[in-house]
Structure formats: C-alpha cells, structure tokens
C-alpha cells in the first residue's frame, strides 16, 4: 500500500511538472502552434499513443484474448493498418484540411457543415450523446476492475474511487493540449507494456517456447475438461482460430475484430484529433509512433492475455478465466499474481493515465454534442450552450458510471468490456462511415444520400442489437419483453443470424443506401461551397 501511494505521488508530481512545463511554453494559440512545430518528434509520438489507448484495450480486450486466444491479434493488425495507417494517411489529412476550411470543431459539425445540413449535425450529435456512454462505461469498468483486483476491495468501492478521480480530472479541465504530460503518460505505458512482454516471454522460455506451451495446453486432459463448453461452441485452443462459422468464430471475427477494427475509422473523438494536428507533416510522423505504440499496447496485452493461461494453469491447475473468475479480471489478476508488486503499481498508474486521456476525450465529445452541436447549432439557441455542454458532461459521467455498475449483473464469463466497446464502434461505423467517406472524397454526394445512409445504418444497427444479435439482445431484454424471444430469429430457419454482429449487416446496408440515394438524388450544394470545403485538399 505504501508503495502504491509513493508511486502515485511521484507520478502526480511528475505529471504536474510536465504540465507546468508545457503551460509555460504555450500562452496563446499562436505560441501553441509555433511551439508545436518545435516539439521533439518523440514527445509528439508518445502523446499520441496515450490518447488512443485505454483500459478497455488492455484490460477488456486483453481479457478477451485470455479466453478466445491469439486470434485477437488480427485486431491488433487492423488497429495498426486501418486505425493508424489508413486513418492517418487517407482520412486524417483530408479531415484536417476540410475541418479547417469549414471551421469545424466537432465530428457532427464537420459532417453538418460539409453537407450544409442541420439535420445531419443534430442526428450525429444525438447518436454520440446517447451511445458514447456505453463505450465510456467499458473504459471505466476496465479501470475499476483493475483497482478492485489490485487492492482486493469491493467493486462498488473501486468504481466510486475510479470515477471520483476521473470526475476531478475532467472537472479540472483535463490536460488538453499539454503535450509533455501526455507524452510522460505515454512513456509510462510504453515502458510498462515492454516490461510485461519481456517478463512473460522470459517466464515461459522465449517466444517460440511460450507459444508452444500455449499450443500444447489444450491437449492436457484437465484443460480439455475445463474448456469443454467453449470447445462445443467452436474453441480449438489459444493459438488457433475457432472453428469456422461457430458461435465463438462469429464473436471473435465479426464483433471483436471487425467491429472495432473497422469502427475505429468513424470514432468521433478520434476524428477530432486529426483537426487539432498542426500540419500533414505531424500526421506523417505520427504514423511511425502510432504504429509502434499500438503494437506495444494491444499486441502485448493480447499476447499476455492468451499466455496467462499457461502460468495460471501451472500455478493453480486452472485456465485463466476460471482462475481469475471473470473474463475482465484476467489481466488484473495476472498482474497481481505473477508480476512484482512495484510493477503492479506502475501499471496501475499507466492504466489510470490511459483511461484518463480516453475518458476526458469521450466526455468532451458527449458534452459538445449536447451543447455546441445540438443545442447551439441544430436548435439555433446560442445562449446557455456552455451550461448545456457541462450538463451533458455530467450526464455522460453519471450514465456511464451507472452502466459500469449495472454490468455486474451481466454474465461474467462474457467479455463485457470488449463487447461494450465493439457495440459502440460498430454503431459508429454503420451510422457515420459512408457519410464521412463521402464528405472527404465524393464532392458530388448529396446531403440527402448522406442522411439516408446514416439513418439506414443507425436503424439497421440498433434493430440488430436489440432484436437479432443474441449476445446483446438477450442482455438488453427488450426483445424478450416485446416478443417473448431473446432474439427474433430463434427457432426459425434464420437462427444462425443470431451470432452475426450488427456491423456485418448494418454497414453494407448503410453503404448501399448511400450509393443508391447518391445515384438518384443530385447534390444541391453550390459549387462555391464545395470549392471552399476542398480548398488545398
């Protein structure tokens, strides 16, 4: 306990020092920009990473790798290739330029101004306001689960402790624009994960030997018995993909890999980051840091999560999920049991830092959706929008805390954090991606087509979540209440559809509707407006 207090104090003092250092150098926007041009690329690099990764990725998805295996590495690959390379090179540069040309400051505002549609801005803001708390609750649960395991305290206490720290941080205005503090957090995260990777591989005799032990684990009779239920659902071991077309295969491939891997392109809080970058040069440089950083964060978390099975089995004779008690407890318990105490303290701080930067950007997006996008721009009411924004942030914090608290009633063997995150990412992809791509690349796409695609994507996605995809519809209970069945397709010829994630259906629907409407309805936007949007692109 003394150790953790000591580490926390050192961390807070260092963060404060770096924040002060950054603040001293940046007094106004002009200074901030000029300063940004002189900042060392490594500082820039680390600050990027810290805002991208959260407890959801490390605790939630790392835990999912503990039960589903290393197939999750496809997600790391997509995180790097789609989430960094494609996002920065093909989306980031245009987003930045068009956003600046239109003086847009939020994602709904970018879409609304580009298509000259108050409806689009309003609709996007409502979707973000109502659904982003699900993702925020996943990040909060990741932090609270870690605190609970580390200190051995009840979940309610750790949740309250974690949310209080977050609320104070957000209330103080976060650490926005303070590059050195972000970079310091990034450095801790990077170092923490590097130590974790080296120690796990070292404990198991090297890279190939570690993987081989995990491959062989499934052949142990005791392990066969413990995994009998998941084996019936398609699980074939931690270093193999699940059986093609099985429930576990659909969960891994359609929900976890595709939902998050593709959904990252249309994440409102990440899109905004592109606009705050000072020039395309910074985006080019960030591709290097982003790629390496994501590999070290999610790659290490997934490898560790899967390999933890070998160590848990050697120690307790139980696979990770049984030894830890719940999917989302695998990483916290692994750190507590198999890593030195000082490392647990450092990682706790790293995870808190990771959660802070992500949560503050999420609550910022929730607040501005309510105040700037909906109240001020869509309803056209200028007065009190600051109050509405702050009220929105408070609502976001309370709702996501309540959701995190309610998650204890869900099946603990489910990857709750990963599922919650994937749900929001998938919903964003289906609702926003075609309209967003159109805004950046298709000058002639009409606002009507963008609207039609957004509505079609959103309606299909929510319908699928509430009535078809059993993993979610069964927990949400609405289908059961209205129709008596957890999923509408149960007991019909279409029953296999209950395993298919919404993104697999809703994104193609959204793309198709956007294309068809685009072909039939011509854009009414004036050529001068389109020229302004694409100036310098």
């Amino acid at each position, binding site marked *: 306990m003394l150790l953790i207090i000591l580490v926390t104090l050192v961390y807070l003092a260092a963060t404060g020092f770096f924040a002060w250092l950054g603040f001293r150098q940046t007094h106004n926007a002009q200074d901030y920009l000029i300063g940004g041009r002189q900042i060392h690329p490594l500082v820039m690099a680390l600050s990027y990473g810290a805002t991208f990764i959260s407890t959801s990725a490390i605790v939630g998805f790392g835990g999912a790798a503990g039960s589903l295996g290393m197939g999750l590495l*496809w997600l790391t690959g997509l995180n790097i290739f789609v989430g960094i390379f494609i996002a920065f090179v093909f989306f980031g540069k245009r987003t930045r330029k068009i956003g600046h040309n239109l003086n847009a400051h939020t994602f709904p505002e970018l879409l609304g101004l580009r298509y000259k549609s108050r409806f689009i801005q309003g609709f996007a803001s409502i979707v973000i306001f109502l659904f982003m708390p699900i993702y925020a609750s996943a990040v909060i649960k990741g932090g609270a689960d870690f605190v609970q395991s580390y200190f051995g305290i009840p979940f309610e206490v750790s949740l309250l402790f974690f949310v209080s720290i977050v609320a104070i941080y957000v209330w103080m205005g976060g650490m926005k624009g303070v590059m050195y503090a972000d970079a310091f957090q990034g450095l801790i995260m990077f170092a923490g994960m590097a130590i974790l990777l080296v120690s796990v591989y070292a404990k198991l005799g090297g890279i*190939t030997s570690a993987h081989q032990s995990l491959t062989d684990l499934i052949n142990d009779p005791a392990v066969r018995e413990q995994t009998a239920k998941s084996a019936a659902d398609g699980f074939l071991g931690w270093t193999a993909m699940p059986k093609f077309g099985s429930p576990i295969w659909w969960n891994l491939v359609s929900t976890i890999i595709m939902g998050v891997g593709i959904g990252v392109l249309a994440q409102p809080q990440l899109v905004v980051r592109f606009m705050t970058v000072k020039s395309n040069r910074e985006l080019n440089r960030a591709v290097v840091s982003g*790629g390496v950083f994501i590999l070290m964060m999610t790659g290490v978390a997934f490898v560790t999560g899967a390999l933890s099975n070998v160590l848990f089995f050697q120690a307790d004779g139980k696979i990770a999920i049984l030894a830890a008690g719940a999917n989302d407890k695998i990483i916290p318990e692994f750190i507590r049991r198999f890593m030195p105490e000082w490392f647990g303290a450092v990682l706790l701080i790293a995870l808190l830092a990771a959660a802070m930067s992500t949560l503050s950007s999420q609550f910022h997006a929730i607040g501005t959706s309510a105040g700037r996008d909906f109240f001020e721009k869509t309803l056209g009411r200028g007065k009190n929008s600051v109050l509405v924004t*702050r009220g929105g942030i408070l609502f976001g914090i309370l709702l996501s805390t309540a959701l995190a608290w309610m998650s204890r009633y869900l099946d603990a063997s489910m990857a709750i954090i990963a599922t919650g995150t994937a749900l929001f990412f998938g919903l964003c992809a289906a609702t926003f991606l075609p309209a967003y791509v159109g805004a950046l690349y298709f000058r002639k796409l009409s606002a009507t087509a963008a609207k039609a695609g957004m509505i079609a994507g959103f309606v299909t996605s929510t319908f699928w979540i509430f009535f078809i995809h059993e993993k979610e519809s069964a927990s949400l209970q609405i289908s059961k209440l209205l129709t008596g069945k957890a999923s509408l397709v149960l007991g019909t010829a279409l029953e296999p559809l209950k395993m298919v994630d919404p993104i697999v259906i809703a994104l193609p629907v959204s793309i198709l509707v956007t294309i068809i409407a685009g072909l039939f309805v011509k854009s009414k936007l004036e050529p001068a407006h389109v020229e302004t949007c694409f100036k310098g692109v």
Partner: protein
Amino acid sequence: MLGFGDGWVLAAYLFCVGSTILCVVYGIINWNRGADKEPTQIQEEVAWAETEKKIEEEV
C-alpha cells in the same frame, strides 16, 4: 512456425509486425513532407486554433 497452432494466427502475428513496419517506413519516408509553409496556411491554422481554445475554455 513460432509455436502457433494454426497458420491463421501466425498470419495475424506477421500482419501485426508487417503493418508496424509499413507505418515506420511510410513515416520515415514522409518525415519532412506536408509542413504548412505558406503564411496564409499558418494564419488559417491560428484562426482555427483560437476558436478551438475558446471552445475548450467554455467546456
């Protein structure tokens, strides 16, 4: 190879490493490209950043 149980997981492992190498190579090749040099561009940046700062302060 590398102790994995099937080729798909090995492919995922290599996809992660390959994508990272792609990012590093792309970033290094374009390290100094894309800086805003025109004074008008810099002025635009400043105007945008000032509005952004105002919004941040309100939040």
